[in-house]
């Protein structure tokens, strides 16, 4: 970073106009919605925002004020937010965050979503370009927040059994939205009636969100893209080699989370287990 950049950052910092990222003053009653990028968090956060406020209806720019991303608003904004705050972020385990809602999604869908957000999807035979993307996705080599497996394991191993940790599967949020949102409401200490939950879900429906996006895209400074909520889409789009690579890397972790492995992946996991038993 050049001196000019550092001075500019310094002035912003004094005026509290810098994004907090690692300088957020964390309060004990803050709740963090955490996920690996591409895990359906945009929609989930919209859903939670609708749970927290029904009237007036939440719009997309609203979401970034209700449940701001940690690098989405200034420090001044975070300081002025009414407590208890709900904040979104994508970092792997951080001990400072005491109340955490963690959203996990099948990595075979995450990889497609991650690829879509940076490349043009050209179909299942994405070729070598896609396979090297998958390899990078699996090793997490170039990532500051780690691979999908590191991210998920860092949170679940440290907090999996903690009372102030709520693990949600994106797949369940899509299929059993009311039930899962009720868990969120309880976690946030909100009493939500069945009608309230149903209304929040209705407002966050995929169609509704697409409509909002279209209506607001002209005026809003920044609209967030919304990955198609097609779960298990990997079954038709993901090349076998990619499925195999992902399952070989994270098979046991995926099974624990209830993500069924394909035949080859399952066989490999069984082989590992047997080998371990034999060594014992």
């Amino acid at each position: 970073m050049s001196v000019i950049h550092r001075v500019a950052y310094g002035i912003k910092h004094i005026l509290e106009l810098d994004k907090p990222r690692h300088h957020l003053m964390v309060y004990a009653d803050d709740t963090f919605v955490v996920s690996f990028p591409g895990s359906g968090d945009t929609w989930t956060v919209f859903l939670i925002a609708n749970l927290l406020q029904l009237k007036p209806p939440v719009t997309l720019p609203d979401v970034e004020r209700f449940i701001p991303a940690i690098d989405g608003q200034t420090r001044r904004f975070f300081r002025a937010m009414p407590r208890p705050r709900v904040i979104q972020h994508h970092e792997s385990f951080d001990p400072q965050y005491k109340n955490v809602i963690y959203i996990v999604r099948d990595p075979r869908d995450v990889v497609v979503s991650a690829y879509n957000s940076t490349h043009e999807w050209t179909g299942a035979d994405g070729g070598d370009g896609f396979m090297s993307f998958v390899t990078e996705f699996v090793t997490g080599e170039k990532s500051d927040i780690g691979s999908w497996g590191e991210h998920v394991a860092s949170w679940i191993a440290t907090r999996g059994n903690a009372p102030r940790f709520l693990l949600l599967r994106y797949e369940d949020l899509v299929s059993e939205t009311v039930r899962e949102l009720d868990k969120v409401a309880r976690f946030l200490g909100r009493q939500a009636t069945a009608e309230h939950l149903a209304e929040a879900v209705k407002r966050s429906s995929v169609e509704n969100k697409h409509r909002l996006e279209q209506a607001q895209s002209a005026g809003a400074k920044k609209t967030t893209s919304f990955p198609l909520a097609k779960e298990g889409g990997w079954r038709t789009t993901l090349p076998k080699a990619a499925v195999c690579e992902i399952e070989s890397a994270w098979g046991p972790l995926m099974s624990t989370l209830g993500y069924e492995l394909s035949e080859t992946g399952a066989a490999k996991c069984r082989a590992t287990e047997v080998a371990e038993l034999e060594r014992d």
Partner: protein
Amino acid sequence: MIHELRYVLDHILGRDLAERYFKTFPDDTFLVSFPRSGNTWTRFLIGNLVRPNEAISFLNVERVIPDTSALSNRYLERIPRPRIIKSHQFFDARYKRVIYIVRDPRDVVLSYYNFQRKYGEIDDQYPLEQYLPRFIAGDVPGLIGWGSWGEHVLSWLATRHNSPGFLLLRYEAMLADPVCELGKVAKFLGIETTAEALAAVVERSSADNMRRMEKTQSDKWVVTKGRRKDIPFVGKAKEGGWQSLLPENAIDEIEEAWGPLMKALGYQLTRRPAAPLLPPYIHLQNAYTVPIRQQV
């Protein structure tokens, strides 16, 4: 406000502490542990291993294996690569090559308790009974940004154990057979060496030697400068001190909090049986071929 101005000025001059967020390179190796787990001793061992002609002391250790929580961004940027960097950070994905040291938490708590008294982070008379539950929760000053012992260890093991860029060392195994454990480090760092050379490194890095150096150098070392001297930085360098020093209910509390993890690491539980550490996050079953020395 003054604090803020100072931070900004330090940042502009590149003098702010590196801590967690500094520029890393793919060829960096990180020496990581929870505080008071044998990290400084290991720094001396590795320092003497990689610089055989330069006796490592508190005066030059920061140049050879710099400490992220004591040095500035600018200082770290000027260390010639490939760097070996000391850190107490919980899991950080940017650390691609990691030597992680783990120590029996029943000993760590006693050592950290004394350390925090030395640094005035807790009152000198602060009772151990009150300290312990806060230590277990990771809720003592100084630990707030680092997590509890269990979170720290699990954050690294669950993400990196069994990966080629990760070497797990147990402090107790290092005490029992330092030459063997240092041999693993040399192999990890790709250093060709001999048993004699390793033994010489171990000798130069002995606790007695470190204590002697601390006596004359503690006023000049960034970590101990200006701190009280009646509690030394270099600890007893022993394992199992908890057996005589920790009250039974304290042992009980620790084993209740971290039993499965302790057992997986080979630390024998004395107060209660522990459930196995749940797979699939961590497979540690056969990680240890060097037995821990029997308690005397």
